């Protein structure tokens, strides 16, 4: 009799907890890159007072291991919904609208869920593709991992981030990916420098300008917005523009990539 009573209480408690569980709301977090306190656009970005023109050709990056810092200061994961530019583990942010090359479509937001306490304070994420599937064939991948502009064929991994353009006419090519890679005896690819970066930005609750692509018309999402400044990639700490050779980084040379590595908090161990 006692056992039956315990069982009934257990079932009732479970049902009650399930009923009280809050609905897991869909969230979207949009991003905007800033240069000289102005939103960065594909094409010309001119700051007359600073006498610079940055012509953006391409800006894309992979993000994973996304976390949200809630109102209580606790960091909790942001779980991605699968679809479009997202898999459940990685998302491609695309700020290139075909102004120079590539496709017209863009993707400036993450869509998913998090149990972080509202209002959210900050979003942080890793820049890159997780090493466990970075070296898989893109021909058998899906979602954003099929986008060959972001695959680094000769390095056998993905370009985690690419920033291409011209700064006052000087070509800018900053490509991030794993470097110093080789295969071990079990054919697994290991890299001296995984080069996974980190970025974080404060969040502002706002109204979405556009419905996230992977949601249908019936679905609605709460929206947050974050701004990321790319100024440190182009300006040195002494207030001068970075030297020309530092505008060409292929993720395999510390001196050339110093600005990018610093911005992404990548600790490059010289070997």
């Amino acid at each position, binding site marked *: 009799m006692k056992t039956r009573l315990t069982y009934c209480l257990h079932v009732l408690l479970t049902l009650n907890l399930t009923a009280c569980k809050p609905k897991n709301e869909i969230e979207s977090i949009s991003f905007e890159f800033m240069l000289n306190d102005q939103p960065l656009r594909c094409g010309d970005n001119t700051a007359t007072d600073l006498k610079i023109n940055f012509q953006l050709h391409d800006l894309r990056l992979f993000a994973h291991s996304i976390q949200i810092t809630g109102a209580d200061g606790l960091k909790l994961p942001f779980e991605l919904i699968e679809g479009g530019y997202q898999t459940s583990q990685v998302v491609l942010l695309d700020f290139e609208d075909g102004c120079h*090359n*590539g*496709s017209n479509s863009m993707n400036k937001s993450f869509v998913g869920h998090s149990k972080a306490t509202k209002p959210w304070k900050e979003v942080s994420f890793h820049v890159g593709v997780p090493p466990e599937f970075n*070296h898989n*064939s*893109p*021909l*058998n991948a899906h979602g954003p991992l099929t986008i*060959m*502009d972001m*695959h680094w*064929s*000769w*390095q*056998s991994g993905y370009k985690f981030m690419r920033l291409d353009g011209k700064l006052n006419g000087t070509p800018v*090519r900053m490509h991030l990916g794993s*470097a*110093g*890679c*080789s*295969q071990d005896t079990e054919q697994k*690819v290991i890299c*001296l*420098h995984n080069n996974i970066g980190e970025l974080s930005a404060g969040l502002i609750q706002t109204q979405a300008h556009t419905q996230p692509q992977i949601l249908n018309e019936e679905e609605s999402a709460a929206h947050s917005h974050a701004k990321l400044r790319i100024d440190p990639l182009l300006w040195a700490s002494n207030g001068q523009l970075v030297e020309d050779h530092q505008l060409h980084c*292929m993720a*395999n040379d510390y001196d050339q990539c110093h600005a990018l590595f610093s911005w992404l908090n990548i600790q490059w161990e010289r*070997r």
Partner: protein
Amino acid sequence: MSSVWETSKTLVNSSRHPTLAIGLATISLITTLGIILFSLYCRTITLNNDALWANLPYNMPLPNVPENNPLTEHKIELGRYLFYDERLSLNSDISCGSCHQQHLAFTNGTAKSSGTTGDLHHLNAMSLANVAYSSSLTWANPLVNSLEHQALLPMFSEQPVEMGWTGITERILNRLNQDSALVELFSLAFPNEKRPVNLKNIVYAIASFERTLLSFQSPYDAYMAGDRAALNASQKRGMALFMSERLECFHCHGGPTFTDSLSHNGQLEKRVAFHNNGLYSYPKTQTFGHNGLAELSLNESDAGRFKAPTLRNIEVTAPYMHDGSVATLEEVIEHYEQGGIAGFDHPQKSIFVRGFILTDEERTDLLNFLMALTDEEFLTNPKFANPYNS
């Protein structure tokens, strides 16, 4: 016996029910026809492996073929068309076959090849003879170990731009989709796919064609198969020199494909090797356009290390070395006689590049042996030729 019995029993029962008998007979007929048609269909798409491998030397193991890209006749044929299709480059002006020309054993006769935007490649175009047996593709990249992976490099390379696919994949696919005859070849090669014209299928077809580029019909092969007259006396002496510990050539250019980066079916351990052959300065006063394996590994001890290319058809693949900096075979022999370029004593230089002294007659013999590796059938086989020219 029981099955015969049961069949007979069914027939007896059916005879009592004519409608059922007609129905069963119809189903049986349809099934039989279906099986026959399916068999015929499969025969057209499944490769007769015996025919493909018929020209391999009797003791040559089969190459590895990825399980997810089995060879079929339709795929190989589509791959041949795509290999020579200039629409596969940004400006519709170059194809794989531009830098890999059949009569030059699928090299291009110049030190550096030019891409669709005019960028010069920093390395010499390699021969595709027997690439099905390569354990690593390109000059210095152990990570590129399948033809499917390798095809992506010229397509999407940005520094230098080769085929120029980055950012325009859809545009190129649209071009191909407008050619109904080509789309039909895609449909035959990849049946049951709604949109067969896609990147994966292009790569899989080209890789399939490249796997058929087998070169084992040279005078050397005839000699090894038992025709003692296939090599003349000078070539035989040259072969003995080539295989000698005195010259050391065979250490890096050994085995059936004359390279030590060999992969084949049933192999216990894949062999991947890279060598610094004395064509790389130390300290690095001249880079020769490429840092060798160190470009990938970031390990300075890999500087100047490159894959030993196949020597099959070496007579027609000038200029030589990873940078195409050596114009003739005579100069290549001279390079190794000197033990590499004088003064370029890189600490990683291969211990087998230590120099040797040849008489004039020996030098001629060695050269004549290398000429015996030319496979005329390979250089002229219409199955490997540009189908758009026929």
